[in-house]
């Protein structure tokens, strides 16, 4: 599904990632963990096209997508969420989700200006689908609220709704549980499973170990920018190198 081959990333003299390779299987939840500074977020930024890696290749669905910008990756079915929640704060919850359907619609500037019948039908469709995804994540009652006024936890849900509206093949979530309380984290876990069960591959970067061990089918561990281990949650929990890396940190 997603093959990472020999990714290296240097910023000036600092090496953030060194020759990291692994593969993510379709229809699984894969967790990427590691102590602070392990390079998890950097790896996410490279996969999602926000950074350009120094070297290495990314294969998505059998095609080389290295260096493609995020908007191209979106068209191919890859989407991500952000650690600090990047919402369109001046727009409503509904409108945010409707932007998620951008790649699922094609009216150009002129048909939008002229409001052609095709454009009207498409707009109707966008609205219905967006509502569906708001219901999917349980925030449909907030549809008309301005996104900037949402509570943090609801903002997370909106970000996921917006990402799911793309109907992606793979969704990358950057610390989705950060800032959530216990109840919200529980809801998040079941939402993540629901997403996987609908046939979407999920990749998480996460600090919340309970969540990772609970939902992930397999886990990749990074340490100091290098591949350290991969395996099932049980294997990782028993892996001496992983334990040493975490103990070494704190």
């Amino acid at each position, binding site marked *: 599904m997603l093959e990472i081959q020999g990714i290296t990333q240097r910023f000036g003299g600092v090496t953030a990632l060194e020759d990291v390779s692994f593969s993510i299987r379709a229809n699984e939840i894969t967790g990427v963990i590691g102590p602070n500074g392990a390079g998890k977020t950097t790896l996410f930024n490279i996969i*999602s096209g*926000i950074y350009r890696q120094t070297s290495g290749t990314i294969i998505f669905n059998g095609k080389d997508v290295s260096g493609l*910008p*995020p*908007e191209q990756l*979106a*068209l191919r079915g890859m*989407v*991500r969420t*952000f650690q600090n929640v*990047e*919402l*369109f*704060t*001046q*727009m409503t919850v509904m*409108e*945010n989700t*409707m*932007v*998620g*359907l*951008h*790649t699922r*619609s094609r*009216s*150009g*500037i002129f048909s*939008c*200006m*002229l*409001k052609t019948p095709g*454009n009207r039908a*498409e*707009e109707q469709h*966008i609205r219905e689908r967006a509502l569906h995804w708001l219901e999917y994540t349980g925030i449909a009652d907030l549809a008309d609220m301005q996104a900037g006024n949402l509570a943090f936890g609801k903002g997370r849900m909106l970000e996921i709704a*917006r*990402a799911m509206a*793309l109907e992606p093949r793979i969704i990358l979530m950057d610390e989705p549980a950060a800032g959530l309380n216990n109840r919200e984290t529980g809801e998040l876990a079941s939402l993540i499973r629901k997403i996987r069960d609908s046939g979407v591959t999920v990749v998480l970067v996460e600090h919340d170990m309970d969540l990772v061990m609970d939902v992930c089918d397999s886990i990749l561990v990074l340490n100091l920018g290098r591949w350290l281990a991969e395996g099932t949650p049980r294997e990782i929990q028993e892996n001496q190198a992983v334990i040493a890396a975490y103990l070494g940190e704190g």
Partner: protein
Amino acid sequence: MKREIFKFLALVVIVAVLPAVFKGGYLMNVLVFVGINSMLAVALNLLLGYAGQISLGQAGFFGLGAYLSGVLTTTYGIDPWLGMIIAAAAVGCIAFLIGFPVLKLKGHYLAMATLGLGIIMYIVFNEAVSSTGGPSGLSGIPNLSVQGYVFDNDVKNYYLIWCATLLIILLSLNLVHSRIGRALRSIHDSEVAARVMGVNARLLKVQIFTLSACISSLAGSFYAHTMSFIAPASFGFNFSVELVTMVIIGGLASIYGSLLGAVLLTLLPELLRAFQDYDIIIYGLLLIVMTMFMPGGLVKGIPAFFSFVRRRLPGGTANNA
């Protein structure tokens, strides 16, 4: 949706009856300018308010449209309507090509680059004397006409210009309420998130810059044909700033706000005729005060003000009662 239609129809009615109210007096002439400025402000707002990309060179595209129309009709004897279309197409091509490098820039640098563009165009209007007539201007530009019906007085021009203005307002309203409008606003709020959602931010910014330039060019053509005379002074940096002021005062990302801004800023100098030279000071103050205290512009600021007052009044939903 119903409310949107109602608002627009109300605007159409107001525009239609105004000449009857003013009985074709001097104010008709001013209202023609209000129409032209409204087109320009709406065009700029698509770029500035919705996509969040500033342009300090809008007057340049306005002037380019006016001069292309003027030169094509006077020197080459081309039909005014055809000339208008050629001008808009040419300006669109220029904006599209220059848009790619320009809109790669952000914030202050974008402001400076567009300002530079505007000034280069202004210099060309002044210096290409053989075709533009230089600082003394270009005269004898024919009025527009349809089937022999010539738009040669203020009332006729009023209806002509306002038909065009209303059309542009309608098309812009449609645009901003569509997927393209949402994509533009998403770029404004978070470009990186917009791109992750599949919005081709770079291309879309250039497209909207081009559209904005085309509308400005059309406004320029209308201006040239209603005035019959154009000179570079109308298309300088000050006018670009005036347009930005209209958009800011009315309210970023509000089409009706731009209309309001254009109305106010066009009428203001007329009302302040007695203190002619104060207008520049007032623009300056308005820009500073609005940005500081009412960044949403009048369309957002006035309702906010009233709800503030209502909360303070005894008997309202007061929290200090």
